């Protein structure tokens, strides 16, 4: 029953996180092997867990050998397993990129600390995904938020400091709300373990309905802030665009998704679907998801800074995922789960690519990327693949999740949300295609030199593009693991 592989990533990431600054200080060349080896180890162990989940069903681990209700439980179901493998693989690629890029984007003195923060962030994100204990979850959410602020602020300029400060304040509000929710749930159910709390919730609703609903409200508010659910997304565009490239990739690709996954888990385990029908939680998620999708897309249209554009596009895509959650039909949920994975891969890839493009062009203004595609065909091709995936052009990844989300909307008898998703696709076409057009068919001013980025930057970029294509063409394993 106790599957030790489920906690390997937590331990390894944490250990590497504490070791990183020390290694960096004393033996600078040891940083890359340390970071890569530890992450690779996590990839292998999560992969093993995925296989076990596929074969035997959900895996658990009791911390210190104490079963609940006394001990802390780690519970890896298929969604968490997929989230975990996505996290470690994306992290591995981003870290390869970071090992080259951090030296140009950051001051040498902070690089060690930057990697420490990243590794701790990864550890806490992974544990948020697999945590089956409410208070444990709160602590990890807090840790995730703090380290996420750290990797933005590490850049040290005014913009990044300001953005991370705003993120910190709003994140603290969110954490407070989550803590309230946890406390209220503990009060009425007497348990912190999610599954046990879930068993008590039906009686709790009968006795203290308002407390349970208040807990749901606080939870939605807190997780909504952290996951950038519209209109609580206000911190996101600055936070995701001002940090170093690799931080943006991790934040947009992984951090926001982690909170959605844990919110989803609490819905599943604690509240149960019946309760969610009783209050208009679904309708709220649908309304906010719709608004987020449309507002994010429209705001992205107006951006000239490529990283801000990608950040607003994240707001829109978070909207997609919440739409899927709100629709609640099996296929819509599958679409949401797929989109969590696909968006993580596509957006991380796009941020890395955008970073490389901005470095070559010397600016993040999309108007200055004109003609870049003739000089950097591979980089821009990767950007094109990511963009087409985001628009949802078959056979790239985004298409599959769009397919399931729209089918789910039709299953729920709500074709309106199909329209929302299609309009958002059109809008995303409107902001991605002009970049591609000017990059490939525009004129490059001859006096500027331009060549493909260093292999350590180009490699991850191309692998992300490859993953976008392959996971779109062969989503079979993902689908069977998600049970559709």
């Amino acid at each position, binding site marked *: 029953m106790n599957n030790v592989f489920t906690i390997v990533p937590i331990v390894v990431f944490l250990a590497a996180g504490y070791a990183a600054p020390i290694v960096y200080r004393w033996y600078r060349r040891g940083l890359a092997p340390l970071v890569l080896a530890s992450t690779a180890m996590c990839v292998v162990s999560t992969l093993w867990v995925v296989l076990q989940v596929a074969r035997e069903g959900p895996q658990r681990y009791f911390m210190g050998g104490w079963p609940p209700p006394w001990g802390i439980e780690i519970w890896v179901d298929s969604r968490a397993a997929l989230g975990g493998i996505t996290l470690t693989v994306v992290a591995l690629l981003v870290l390869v990129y970071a090992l080259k890029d951090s030296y140009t984007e950051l001051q040498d003195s902070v690089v060690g600390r930057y990697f420490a923060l990243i590794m701790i962030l990864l550890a806490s994100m992974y544990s948020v995904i697999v945590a089956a204990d409410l208070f444990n979850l709160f602590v990890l959410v807090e840790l995730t938020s703090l380290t996420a602020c750290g990797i933005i602020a590490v850049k040290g300029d005014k913009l990044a400091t300001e953005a991370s400060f705003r993120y910190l304040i709003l994140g603290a509000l969110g954490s407070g709300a989550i803590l309230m929710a946890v406390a209220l749930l503990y009060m009425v159910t007497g348990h912190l373990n999610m599954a046990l709390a879930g068993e008590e919730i039906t009686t709790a609703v009968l006795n203290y309905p308002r407390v349970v609903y208040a807990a749901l409200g606080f939870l939605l508010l807190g997780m909504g802030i952290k996951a950038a659910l519209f209109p609580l997304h206000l911190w996101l565009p600055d936070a995701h665009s001002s940090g170093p490239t690799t931080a943006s990739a991790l934040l947009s690709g992984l951090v926001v998704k982690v909170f959605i996954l844990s919110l989803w888990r609490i819905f599943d385990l604690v509240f149960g679907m019946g309760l969610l029908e009783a209050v208009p939680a679904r309708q709220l998620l649908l309304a906010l998801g719709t608004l987020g999708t449309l507002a994010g897309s429209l705001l992205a249209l107006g951006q000239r800074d490529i990283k801000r554009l990608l950040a607003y596009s994240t707001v829109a895509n978070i909207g997609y995922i919440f739409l899927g959650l709100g629709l609640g039909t099996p296929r819509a949920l599958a679409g949401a789960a797929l989109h969590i994975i696909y968006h993580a891969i596509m957006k991380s890839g796009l941020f890395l690519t955008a970073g490389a493009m901005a470095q070559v062009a010397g600016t993040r203004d999309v108007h200055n990327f004109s003609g870049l595609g003739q000089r950097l065909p591979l980089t821009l091709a990767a950007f094109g693949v990511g963009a087409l995936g985001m628009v949802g*052009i*078959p056979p790239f990844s985004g298409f599959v999740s*769009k397919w399931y989300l729209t089918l789910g909307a*039709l299953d729920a008898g709500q*074709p309106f949300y*199909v329209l929302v998703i299609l309009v958002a696709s059109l809008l995303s076409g409107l902001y991605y295609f002009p970049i591609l057009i000017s990059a490939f068919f525009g004129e490059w001013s001859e006096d500027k030199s331009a060549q493909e980025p260093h292999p350590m930057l180009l490699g991850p970029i191309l692998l992300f593009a490859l993953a976008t294509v392959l996971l779109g063409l*062969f989503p079979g394993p993902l689908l069977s693991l998600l049970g559709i």
Partner: protein
Amino acid sequence: MFHSVVSWLPVWITLLPLVGTGLIYVVEQRSWKWRNGLTVIVSALTCVMVAAMYPYIARGQLLTKAFPDILPPLGLSFRVDPIAFLMAAIIALVWLAVAIYSLAYMVREHHKKRYYPFLTLILGGSLGVVLAGDLFTFFVFFEFMSLASYVLIIQEQTPEAMKAGYKYLIMTICGSLLLFFGIISVFELAGTLTLGTGGIIGAPSNLALGAFIAFVLGFGIKAGIFPLHVWLPDAHPVAPSPASALLSGLLLKVGAYGFLRIVYNVYGIELLRRTHWLEPVVYMAVISILLGSCVAILQDDLKRRLAYSSVGQMGYIMLGIAVLSERALFGAIFHIFSHAFMKAALFLVAGAFAHKTGKRYVSQLEGIGMRMPLTLGAFGLASLSMVGIPPLAGYLSKWQLSVGMLDVGRPWLVVVMLLSSLMNAVYLFPVVINGFFGADDSYPEFPGIRWENETDVKMLVPILVLAGAILVFAIYPNSLPFSLSGFSARYLFQLGGW
């Protein structure tokens, strides 16, 4: 054993140009001669493979192949029935002619390194569309083809080309999203997307109607039907002439082909007869026919004139599909063939004029026949066919269409077609008449065929072959395209009982 090899043919036909694209890209880094050769070889081999399917189609067999593991849960599948074969044959043949023509035409153009790979890429995409065995596969290739065509449209990279291309791109994305909605609704309603039966949607419902409207709009944009044609007159003239020939001659038809599949394989004749959902399409087609022809008269730019003429001609095809009569469908399918050859020939001739003399405008083309009698002769032949003069191909398709209209008791549609034939004559004949009988200062009298004045042979041969096909396939009325069109129409009308 042998059949299993043959059933792979549609896959190879689609795959060869796609793989060829990569090869061409690699080869062209070394030598443009090899690149040119390879482009033609890929195109020709594709032609041969399409032809190899003929014995099976003629015997009434279907070729099917499914790949459920690619893009699950639906998977890709291929299915070749008579109409799919006919479309593939038309596409492969015209493409080969255009590819050969391009070799000479593109010599003076820039960005050739982009042109040839994309030419081949789109060939693969459009063959994938017509050979698709289900709507999902259809959509995947359709999207692919539509987006890749953008590159051909903006080939010249002039500001107006970029503008036209952007318009095309936006409308294409809108169209694909509409198609996406239609397809997903069909899947929701029917639980399947196969294209093998006479209708997979059982009963009319609001969602079915919504999907149908989405299909009409989505395919209407691609096929350039009024009022969705607005991208077409901008996009087709700005492309290089061989690309215009493909866009106008073939890619528009792919839109019409998709609509045909929707009408006959997805919704089915029964349902549409009962619900009258096709009535608006009939009117859209009529307006396209009249408006396209009218506006074509006003254009002085020859290629723009031809582009507007395509709007009108696509109206014929959509009309033939929409009136739900077997003979009208026969005519529509045959018109897909004849218009593909005629319009490709006309655009190639327009390109030849521009290439040789730099003249793009009808008013400049007076006396061009003195210099380029064979080229203008081909233009004349294609024009006669467009107007519907017997015994050319255009006449046969119009005849079948008209008979079909009478079959369903709508003689006024025949009047529309006659009126449009008259207008076709008004916008096409002046080019021919002024060309042959107009004054040319350097040649007061016809000097005979002078090869130094005539189009380059590599361009002339494809033109003459396309124009010749219009004559040859019409003089032998039971020729391949004609009988296959009849066969296809019968097949689509009697699905199941065939």
